């Protein structure tokens, strides 16, 4: 459904992604884990063209694009079928919760207003934010903002949603409410790619886990297998470091 091949990316000559191949099937939940600086964020940003890769192909929606020479129009087409949930929420601070969700439907996709309205209420209900439709983002807690951001991302029914550490800017107590929403989406069969430090979530919810380090995929596999029986020594180290403070 979504596949990227051989992504390379350097920042000022320092390689950050060094040939990543990566694939998501319809309905899958893929968790990407790895130490800080391993390139997880950069990978998601390259897939969504927020960062221009130095090399690589993307196959999405049965089209193959060269990631370096793709046209603006094609980028937009890819994005129309892709949702992105940012670590720092990035809700439009000049719009109410309701308008934040409506914007992508009405302005970007020219959806009929009545229909968009219906959809907006539907997704806001799903994330449990129906009572705050008329508030501005600045008036919400971090967890509430992230739930609205998820509603905004799922509203246009994208084929895949990318999450970049959706809970790491949240207090532990607020983390739960966001993870609950994500679990719900996973159960409904939403295709998701989730960069996360929440090992519990990766273990329990993801169908597949990818462990990255230094810009390459070190190991990937079924969530259970990878957690219980990592093949690589480095994966083992990382997992034990992560569980140490829990």
């Amino acid at each position, binding site marked *: 459904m979504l596949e990227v091949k051989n992504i390379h990316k350097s920042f000022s000559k320092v390689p950050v992604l060094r040939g990543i191949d990566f694939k998501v099937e319809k309905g899958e939940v893929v968790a990407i884990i790895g130490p800080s600086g391993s390139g997880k964020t950069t990978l998601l940003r390259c897939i*969504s063209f*927020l960062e221009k890769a130095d090399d690589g192909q993307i196959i999405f929606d049965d089209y193959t694009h060269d990631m370096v020479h793709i046209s603006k129009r094609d980028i*937009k087409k890819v*994005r*129309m079928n*892709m*949702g*992105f949930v*940012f670590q*720092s929420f*990035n*809700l*439009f*601070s*000049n*719009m*109410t919760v*309701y*308008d934040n969700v*409506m*914007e*992508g439907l*009405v*302005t*970007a*996709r020219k959806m009929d*207003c*009545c229909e*968009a*309205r*219906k959809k907006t*209420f*539907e997704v806001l*209900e799903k994330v449990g934010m*129906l009572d705050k*439709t*008329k*508030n*501005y*983002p*600045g*008036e919400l807690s971090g967890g509430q903002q992230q739930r609205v*951001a998820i509603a*905004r*991302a799922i509203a*246009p029914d994208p084929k895949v949603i990318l999450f970049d550490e959706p809970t790491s800017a949240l207090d532990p107590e607020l983390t739960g409410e966001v993870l609950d929403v994500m679990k719900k989406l996973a159960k409904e069969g939403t295709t998701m790619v989730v960069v996360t430090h929440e090992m519990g979530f990766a273990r329990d919810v993801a169908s597949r886990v990818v462990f990255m380090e230094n810009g390459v995929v070190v190991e990937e596999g079924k969530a259970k297998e990878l957690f219980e029986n990592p093949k690589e020594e480095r994966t083992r180290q990382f997992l034990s470091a992560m569980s140490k403070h829990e």
Partner: protein
Amino acid sequence: MSDRLVEILVSSFMRILIPGIKVTVPLTLLSFLLSVFIGLLLALVQVANIKVLKEVARFYIWIFRGTPLIVQLFIIFFGLPSLGITLNAFPAAVLAFGMNLGAYNAEVFRSAITAIPKGQLEAAYMIGLSYPRAMARVILPQSFPVAFPNLFNNLISLLKDTSLASSITVIELFTSAQQIAARTYEPFALYCEAALIYLIFSTALTWLQRWIEKKLVWESSENDKDKDKDCGCGRNKAMIG
């Protein structure tokens, strides 16, 4: 203070205030409008990184910020006629002040736009907006409150700078004071009186600024509560039930 001086000051007060209201105020406001328009244009061209236009914008800003305003006034009023464009004093002044302040407002807008977190633009892209749409719907509406205090400071500076228009025959607040001074030979007292009137105007502007700034916060106020985009398909939440 001598009786004569008091009498001069009293009798001249209205004769300075009225041109202030009739000329200085419209001159200030029109020039400011023009400067906001020019400033926004110059800022957008730079932020959007449009090749040649960006260089043009930077050249414009360099010239207008690097030379005295009085010279710009002279060139537009006395210089343009030799190119066949003869403007009256008032429009020439509006053009000169507007173009000059435009160069400063360009920087105000540019830094306000740059101050909006990059994530806002990226989020706009990811919901499918194009660059111009993202600018119009997300970035600019957020930039205005950021730019506002500096724009307003520039407006207050402009108010006082319009006194330079006297040198190209516009009879505004300061010229009126000068005229009376020329007759009574009391420039010092009359300039103080003019200063007082400028002080009144600029204080009023400062109050206006504070009042607007209070309103400019994104926060749902009571009468906001019914402002969601209404699509004419009813506001009945039950439909989603």
